[in-house]
């Protein structure tokens, strides 16, 4: 039974980090209907900014973590202002192509720095000994990662439900024309959505970087890895991203724990999320919590 609960704990840890990385996708899609293909690169940028502030500028890691979220907030906002603002009203495929271009630009910029082709790891700032409870192991890094994830998810949930700006973002997501007619600045909402996505990406980057070490390929791959999570939860649903993240994390851990290496199976932990994704999409094409839009002709 300890084995089972260890897998549950690991699944929740992994899943909540997936959820945090997925929130950035959702925030942008929710307000502007754009799928940001460069999200993985922003995750990596966030991790590297935290590292640079911590190691090169000698700023305590807790402060660096917050500062990198602020920097990435403004960075993502600038990206939206420079590259995407002028595409409002253009076909969605054009906007997606711009995010693909953006991915190459950020890749190129990171390769110009030592981060592109060297490996780093954050200085240890938490006890290295794990917390052991009833035979279940969890590291402090994982605990902090989960706490930050749920804290941010809580803040964003409150933000969308209670704050005026959050409600205006939801309004833009529902109907841009109607929102404009009641005085909401749609471009401002888009900018804010990108900025918030940048903020969560930096948080995800910092946490993933602490767990895996800083390797550019590993970090930016998370933009793709969390894609099934986003689709499964519903592209425009924050609770969906959280639920799907944890479901995916649990599926991966259980597949790895009970299927891989048994019955002649191998690699199911990597394959199963995609199979489940396909099956769910067959029955719920908008994901588990996505908005089912009805178009009347």
């Amino acid at each position, binding site marked *: 039974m300890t*084995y089972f609960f*260890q*897998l549950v704990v*690991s699944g929740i*840890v*992994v899943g909540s*980090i*997936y959820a945090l990385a997925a929130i950035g996708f959702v925030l942008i899609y929710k307000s502007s209907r754009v799928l940001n293909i460069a999200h993985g690169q922003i995750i990596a940028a966030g991790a590297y900014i935290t590292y640079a502030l911590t190691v090169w500028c000698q700023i305590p890691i807790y402060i660096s973590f917050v500062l990198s979220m602020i920097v990435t907030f403004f960075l993502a906002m600038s990206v939206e202002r420079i590259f995407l603002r002028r595409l409002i009203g253009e076909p969605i495929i054009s906007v997606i192509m711009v995010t693909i271009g953006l991915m190459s630009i950020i*890749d*190129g910029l990171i*390769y110009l720095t*030592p981060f*592109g*082709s*060297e*490996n*780093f*790891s954050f200085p*240890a700032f938490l006890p*290295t000994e*794990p917390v052991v409870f009833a035979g279940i*192991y*969890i*590291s402090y890094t*994982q605990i902090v990662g989960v706490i930050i994830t749920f804290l941010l998810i809580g803040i964003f949930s409150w933000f969308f439900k209670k704050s005026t700006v959050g409600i205006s973002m939801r309004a833009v997501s529902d109907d841009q024309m109607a929102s404009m007619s009641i005085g909401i600045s749609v471009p401002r909402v888009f900018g804010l959505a990108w900025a918030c996505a940048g903020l969560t990406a930096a948080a995800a980057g910092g946490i*993933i970087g602490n*767990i*895996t*070490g*800083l*390797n*550019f*390929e*590993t970090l930016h*791959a*998370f933009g793709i*890895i969390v894609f099934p999570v986003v689709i499964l939860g519903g592209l425009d649903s924050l609770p969906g991203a959280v639920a799907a993240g944890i479901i995916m994390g649990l599926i*991966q*851990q*259980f597949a*790895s*724990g009970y299927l*891989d*290496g048994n019955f002649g199976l*191998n*690699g199911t*932990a*990597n394959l199963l999320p995609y199979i489940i994704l396909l099956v769910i999409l067959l029955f719920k094409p908008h994901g588990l919590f996505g908005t089912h839009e009805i178009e009347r002709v």
Partner: protein
Amino acid sequence: MKSLKFTTCIMVAAAVLMMALPVSAVAGNVYKLGLSLAITGPTSDAGNPYAKGVEDYFRYVNDMKLLGDDTIECTIRDDKYETSITKRNFEEYLDMGIVFYLNYSTGSTLALKRDFDEVKMPTMPASFHAGNIEGSDYIFLPIASYSAQAIGLAEYLVRKHEGKTPKVAMFIHPSAFGRGPVEDIEKSIKAGLDIEIVEVVEHGQDLDNTAMLQRWKSKNVQYVISQTVQSPVAGMLKDASRLGLVAGKFGEKDKITFLGAHYTGGNDLIALAGDAAENFYWTTSYIVTSEPGAGADAQLALAKRYGRDDKAANSHNYANGVMVAQVAAEAIRRAKARGNEINKETLYQEMLEMNGMNAFYPVTTVGPVTYSKDDHQGVDTLQLYAVQDGEFRAVGKPFIPEYTEKIKK
């Protein structure tokens, strides 16, 4: 006055003649080589220092006039780890008239294997995949193949293991690069190597390896042999460390001893895994700068001469780049000493004759480079290292795996 005019005319004529002569007649021959590798993109953490090693050694050859007035001009291009770009680079190098080619990845080496043979181009890749040289006459692996490395690790653990047949898991990259050694390990087991392969796991981009490690624990896995790159190994080691599974000393009871081949280790692993890298056992044919010696001194001096930072200077992939450049330069030097014209045919012949008394001893390897018609694997000797107090330290003497020969029969 007339004689002064005449002398001036002669001098001007001589100067014009000198300028009109081909550069080579004045400054010696220029031998063109090409290197295509991942300076950006996947595996660029290895490709970057590798390129620096190649570049620095050829600069050294030219600066120190090791080939007299002749010089080596090696064009280095980034292929972003994409075979299509590698192929384009190679074709352009052919148009430039290269006499020796340095390739990089397993995928591109396998894909271009026929091309190398078709144009009869001696080629050294940075990939040590045994499949590279199967059915190829022109590809030369710099050092022992990944298979030989994995077998070497398995032999070592058999020698050191106490008790019944050791249970081993293999943690591999999901590609030809990772899968290569599995079959050869299985052949070695059939040939008498006393280990039991409990599982072969092809890793993904895993954030948490708890399930895999706990499963191994439940199956009494005692050793893990990895054949992949550093990042997934670092993740696995961190998780194993958190779960208290890492053996404090080789073969410790009820713990797991982690071992890996060339690209799993080096300073990059320590950079990624931190303290969790302690007691990781790693094999390669290269020297490491954390072990003092003439090779380490030479490597560091070369890097310092050309202004490389500490990270590149101490990288085993810098050593890797220096080594392949040394072999290419040595083949040119030998062909030149024989009075042969330097072209791909004569260099190919020099590579085939690099054995016995003609074996070559580069500064950055733990053994000699030997090639022949039937042996396209350069340095057969391996050295085992282990991380101790954050540095790779040599464990025992250099060795040659026995089963690599046994499974050939």
